[in-house]
């Protein structure tokens, strides 16, 4: 379970998270929508400790993410994150990209790590590409590789930060299919996305962020068909 309690975060004078409270249960798919600068991406990077927070706390399975005593690298094995930019390691082959963390962080043998990596690459449809370098992959393939790379650590939670935003429109589908498959497998996920129809299909709940505040949260049906908040209504009418 991910518990977010009154989290505040500023970048200089700009407060991007103004007291967020949110709980994500095991197996839940939560989609976060909202305009740019609403704080949704920042929230994801705070959850796996890439960004410090100013106040409040974030607990992942009861572990305080930002506590000094927390072994953050160990905790990150539990929380996979995939970013808007694909962030492939350009000097490593696809297979090496995926096996690096299992080998170095989880101290797996090469054979063990490769077995898992190949399984994950097949899962995202990149089994054939394992020996090529990322530069030979399309954007969609690179993003699927990044997903396989995160999955190879067998995380309990997956965070997706606008993973289709940097893709050509015709490549968006293949990445969304991968996400859909993960959701169907029962992975606990928080997705920040601008793909509204996708959010509607896969989410258990949808949260709408506006100017650092979670303005509304509820089942997709409620958010998309009968939004209670004025800002949600405005946002949805603009993106439709």
């Amino acid at each position: 379970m991910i518990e977010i309690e009154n989290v505040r975060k500023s970048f200089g004078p700009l407060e991007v998270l103004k007291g967020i409270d949110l709980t994500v249960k095991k197996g839940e798919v939560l989609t976060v929508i909202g305009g740019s600068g609403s704080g949704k991406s920042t929230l994801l990077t705070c959850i796996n400790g890439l960004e410090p927070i100013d106040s409040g706390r974030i607990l992942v399975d009861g572990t305080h993410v930002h506590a000094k005593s927390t072994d953050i690298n160990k905790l990150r094995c539990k929380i996979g994150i995939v970013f808007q930019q694909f962030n492939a390691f350009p000097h490593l082959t696809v297979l090496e990209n995926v096996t690096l963390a299992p080998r170095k962080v989880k101290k797996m043998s090469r054979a063990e790590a490769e077995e898992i990596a190949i399984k994950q690459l097949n899962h995202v449809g990149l089994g054939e590409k394992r020996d090529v370098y990322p530069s030979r992959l399309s954007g969609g393939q690179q993003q699927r590789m990044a997903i396989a790379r995160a999955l190879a650590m067998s995380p309990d939670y997956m965070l997706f930060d606008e993973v289709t935003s940097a893709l050509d429109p015709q490549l968006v589908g293949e990445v969304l299919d991968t996400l859909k498959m993960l959701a169907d497998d029962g992975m606990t996920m928080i997705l920040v996305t601008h793909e509204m129809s996708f959010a509607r299909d896969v989410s258990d709940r949808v949260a709408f962020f506006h100017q650092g505040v979670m303005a509304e949260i509820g089942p997709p049906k409620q958010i998309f068909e009968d939004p209670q908040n004025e800002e949600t209504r405005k946002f949805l009418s603009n993106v439709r």
Partner: protein
Amino acid sequence: MFDTALTTSDLLFMAKGAGMTLAVTGIAVAAGTLLGIVLGVVRVQLGPVWSAPLTFLLDIFRSVPLLIQLVLGNAFQAIAQFGWEPFTTSCVILSLYTAAYCTEIVRGAIDAVPATTRRAARSLGLNWSQDMGYIVAPLAARIAMPSWIGLTLGVLKDSSLILWLGMIELLRASQIVITRLQEPLFILMICGLIYFLLSFPIARLGGYLEKRWSPND
């Protein structure tokens, strides 16, 4: 008809000088690169403000002509009674000079590794040193390679200045032969040719590494 008084033993004498040039360059580049990597990482980690004193010190080594550094360094080691041989002094000064340039190359190369790539590495649970070792080092090495090759070639030629400490390296050896034979043009051509033969493999090494790495980019 071409005629010269140059003998095999003169050539051997020049070759010995070339050996000295190579030895001093090899030591200076090796030590300077190691020190440059350490200081470059320190500079990145400390940030521009905290590393300002270090940057200032390195700026001195980069700004003062090497010849002055060699002469002053030699004088200081005598005053401080280190009792260094000219060879040691030459290696120490050239190493520091190399390190000063190498630090900047390393700092620039580390900074050029995209922050998002490093963030992705950390998000997978890699700690700082694993991120540095498996992601930053290989990527920064590619970025730094052309500048580092340039630095190495520069040090190889700048090392001729150690003749002012009485070292007989390639240029000094050639001068001695010229003084005796009075055939400056011919001997300088040979001297230049030897410098070229020493430099060429280094330059090619750079080209080779760039080519080897490029199919991945």
